């Protein structure tokens, strides 16, 4: 099962190694992913309509992850956003989910987690037709 190349994923994280690992994981899973290191440029890229899925860190310079989700949900509510954080607590998790995040991961994340969340995304109704 090959994912559709029409799905493009954006990774927004200020940590280079995290972006690198995520990109490689997603490549293994058959997705193409771009990366940006701050929330503002990430939002801009998302609003351009090139991306259908987003990964975002919470702690970032400028716009942080929660803000990123909130802003993105206003314009593009259908895009699932997966939140990854280096020091997650239950509160931040709840905050992220309330803001409209699709999933919440704690660093260091596992390959299997990424795989599962991508499979879950594929189950979303509006992804049916595209997948």
């Amino acid at each position: 099962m090959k994912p559709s190349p029409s799905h493009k994923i954006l990774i927004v994280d200020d940590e280079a190694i995290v972006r690198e690992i995520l990109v490689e994981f997603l490549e293994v899973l058959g997705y193409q992913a771009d990366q940006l290191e701050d929330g503002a440029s990430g939002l801009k890229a998302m609003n351009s309509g090139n991306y259908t899925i987003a990964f975002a860190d919470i702690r970032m310079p400028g716009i942080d992850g929660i803000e990123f989700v909130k802003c993105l949900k206003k314009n593009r509510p259908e895009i699932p956003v997966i939140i990854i954080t280096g020091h997650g607590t239950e509160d931040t998790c709840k905050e992220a989910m309330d803001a409209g995040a699709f999933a919440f991961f704690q660093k260091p994340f596992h390959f299997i987690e990424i795989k599962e969340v991508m499979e879950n995304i594929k189950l979303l109704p509006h992804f049916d037709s595209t997948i």
Partner: protein
Amino acid sequence: MEDSLKAKLANFFQKPKIVILIAYLVIGTYLCLLMAINFQSQTALQKSTLKRIHLDLEKRAFSLGYFFSERKHGLESIATSKDVLSYFINKSLGMSEAYGLKVSLFVIKQILLKTLQEKSIQGDPIYMRLLLVDTSGRPLIDTASESQEAFFFSSVKTAPSPDEPPIVFIDQENNKIKLVLKTPCILQGEVMGSLISILNLDTVRKHFVDFSPNPSLDRFDLVSNDGRIMRSDDAAQCPDFRELTSMTIHQLPEDQFSLIKFPSERAHAKQMMVTRVTIHNVPLYLLSWVEKKTITGTLTPWQSLLGTAFLALMILLGIVKLVKFNTENLVLQTRYDESKRQQHRLASKNQQLKHEISQRQKIETELEEQRSLQMRSDRLRSLGEMAAGIAHELNQPLVGVRGKAELTLLSLAQEGPLVPQKIENNVQTIIEQVDRMVHIIDHVRLFARNAGKVEISRVDLNDIVCTALTLVMVQFKSYDLHLEKILAPRKLFVLVNPFSVEEVIFNLLTNARDAVESKKKEAGQNYRPDISIRTGSDELENQKNIWIEIKDNGSGIPESIIPSIFDPFFTTKDPDKGTGLGLSICKSIVEEFGGTIDLESREGEGTAFIIHFPECRTPTETDETIPFP
């Protein structure tokens, strides 16, 4: 003008001495007045006493005069009685003595005897002897017994008498004074004989002279006008009046008392007040004697005045002393009361102060507890945040380690020519990330290394700088940074924990490195990073200050965030580059050793951190025991 007068008056009365003097004068005047009144009244009393005595004297003189005139009238009535007259008629008619005249004489004698017996004052006979004499003085009838010597009127000496012929004559024969009354018997204008009576002097004295309502005070004496005192022999207690001559008596003024000394030649003579009164128509004086001291007392009014004055003076002095004593006492009492009140006030104030102090101590203890609680919770929080920060820092490379490891596993499952290369890259990245983690852990360990250690020693700040530089030099070289080191030539001794100060220097150098790195990214190739570290000392208010300056020409700090630059967890760096604790830790370390940390910064131009420590002059024991590496 008026005001100045008032002021003067006020000033005058404000002087306490003058007021006291005036008070003394008033009291003295009052006492003088009292004494004067006393003197006057005493004098008046003496005068009135003398007056009373004089009045008594006059009364007695009057009574005596009346008594004598009574006697005269009594005799006259006998002399003119028909019995006496008939005798003289019969005699002139030539009646024979042996017959008719004898009867007549017998009758007269009976009358005379009867008179002698009957006339008395309260039983005391008035007359001693009654005689009828003829013109030649030969006694015709004598009431005296035959044994008594004959009385001849011719021997009676008539004392000098006033205008009228005297009623009474005084016989002084044989040094015996007799009061004699003589009444002529007149028949047809011719004196035929005389009726003579000799008065009982004792009766006269007893009833008119000697009796006295106040015998101790005054006494009276009957004196003939030629100066002979008629007195009974038993009057021994009386003063010796032999000196009192008739001349003296004559010279005595009638209505005044004269002072006479008895006896005059003696020093302690009796002083007698003497006066005399003439008895009307009788050659007699009535003398009054008063001993002076019974009237005036032993003191004269002047003596008493002096005595009273002395007493008054003593009383005055006593009052003055008493007032002074009382005033002093009052002042002392007032002072004592005041001091007691003061003491009381002080005690209550003390109590209050104690209470306040204990209250304050309580509050301070509470505050201290609160503060320590706050500090503990702060520490816990900061520990939690630090732990979170450390977790965050470690989680980033862990993502890389774990991700690369999983990718390696995934690659191993594949087959292809690129796999070994991939695996090698992955492992390389894993090593890099592990190094990064080691660096973070080193950082934490560095921070924790001397945590809780407060051992301080006297060390040379230059040594600390050198040790810190050896740690960062390698790092700086890898960043291709130039570090300038200008150290003071002399030793800069400070009393610190060298490890902690080393940490501070390390932190500040790391900050400087980040600042120049950040600027390098912006400014590009033309920018030449420059970091310098300098040490030195300067003198300020007799206190030598050691300083260390770490300066860079990096990105600088915006003015708006300078005030919060030393706050814990305040950071502008990327999350993987710091937790925001560095500068706050630096500040607390510097302040712990009595130092200060300041910074000068301009955004885009660079930052300089300057730390001051007080110089440690005297070498301490720790100087040798803990040599710094």
